[in-house]
């Protein structure tokens, strides 16, 4: 059977991997290729590189580091941030990325998803969604979350957007639950389960991983296909081989 995936997320700023808490106060944690190789060796199933400055600054992803990663890495990887048209996506895919992920530009112009799916096939097109629960109890999407100065709250309900992006050609959805992000209190199981119920494409959970039990919960309860995490992997608090052993011992199928 298809195994559940563990995906370290590497936030990239100016060609270096960085991490902040709740999308702020970023510190450098290492070189892209070094970290990519380390995670590959530890058994990561996939990698996501998120260029956190490209999107808010209206820049495109720097193709050079994508190519450097593609040369050495033999597991799939996805590039996110700053992809706002088919040409930019083609650059990144031709540089060797397996998938491209769009978030804010898809909110600006939803037909971008249709164009990407038509040009490259849905299997390349990942839609990232940053979502927050508001005072009225509804989950709504946020835009430009890479830049606290520009971050915007939108009227769009998260569940509506999940349905729409699939209709437009999303081949995978990454749901980043912002209430949980960076604070290691566990994935937002309630929100992920709600999204799962209207998501027929693979669903990647993001935001909140702090302990092995959180991963077990996101697979066994929220039924996510993959779990993305950053700080617990970067800090070494959780090692991927140990996590895979724990999941396998708890009847979650993982790649050995």
């Amino acid at each position, binding site marked *: 059977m298809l*195994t559940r995936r563990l995906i370290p997320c590497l936030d990239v700023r100016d060609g270096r991997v960085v991490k902040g808490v709740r999308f702020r106060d970023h510190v450098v944690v290492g070189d892209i290729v070094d970290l990519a190789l380390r995670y590959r060796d530890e058994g990561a199933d996939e990698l996501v590189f998120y260029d956190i400055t490209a999107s808010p600054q209206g820049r495109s992803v720097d193709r050079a580091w994508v190519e450097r990663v593609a040369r050495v890495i*033999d597991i*799939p990887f996805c590039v996110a941030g700053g992809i706002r048209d088919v040409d930019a996506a*083609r650059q990144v895919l031709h540089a060797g990325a*397996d998938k491209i992920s769009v978030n804010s530009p898809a909110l600006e112009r939803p037909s971008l998803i249709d164009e990407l799916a038509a040009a490259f*096939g849905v*299997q390349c097109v990942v839609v990232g969604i940053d979502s927050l629960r508001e005072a009225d109890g509804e989950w709504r999407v946020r835009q430009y979350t890479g830049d606290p100065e520009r971050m915007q709250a939108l009227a769009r309900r998260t569940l509506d957007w999940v349905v729409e992006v699939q209709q437009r050609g999303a*081949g995978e959805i990454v749901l980043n639950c912002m209430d949980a992000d960076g604070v290691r209190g566990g994935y937002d199981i309630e929100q992920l389960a709600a999204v799962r119920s209207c998501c*027929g494409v693979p669903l990647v959970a993001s935001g909140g991983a702090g302990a092995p039990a959180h991963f077990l919960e996101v697979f066994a309860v929220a039924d996510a296909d993959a779990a993305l995490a950053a700080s617990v992997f970067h800090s070494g608090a959780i090692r991927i081989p140990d996590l895979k052993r724990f999941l396998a011992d708890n009847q979650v199928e993982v790649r050995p």
Partner: protein
Amino acid sequence: MSAVELVLVDAGGTNIGSVRYALERLGVFAEVSDDAQRIARATHVILPGVGAAGPGMQRLREAGLIDVLRGLSQPVLGVCLGMQLLFEHSEEGDTTCLGVVPGQVRRIEGSARRRVPHMGWNRLDVLTDDPLLGGLGADAHAYFVHSYAVASAAHTLASTDYGSALAAIVRHRNFHGMQFHPERSAAVGARLLRNFLDS
């Protein structure tokens, strides 16, 4: 391996770079070409592919490669969409394919438990002894990303279980196919590519 003269057929797929890098990691430098004579002279031919069947076949037709590819007698490997194009027909865009391996490509039917695309690492279940599968362990996993598939059948060397048995590795005469991405399947993928180069 100095005798290997490998050509990657440029069918417009976006994974050509990844496949080329994977071969470079094995010490083999592949030429990317859509030139019929160049392809015919190669010792090994790889048809990579990501995208849709219709545009993929259209591109091969425009490059004048349909008959060339059909007539090849050296080892040929189709990867992902490239494997699907080896079959007779694809439901995707109702496309007539190369027809060098018997079989039909159909859409994977989704359900609550069976998400489409089939995306991620799935186990390779070996069905037949074949040199292409040499060194493959009992618990070998490969990385799949596809919405269309061929049901496991006569020419299937290894299948994968996604609600039903799907063809993962196929071979008919000199035509080999891998539905997953060997270039992104870690040590398992590297071993399979090496086996193909040794064929």
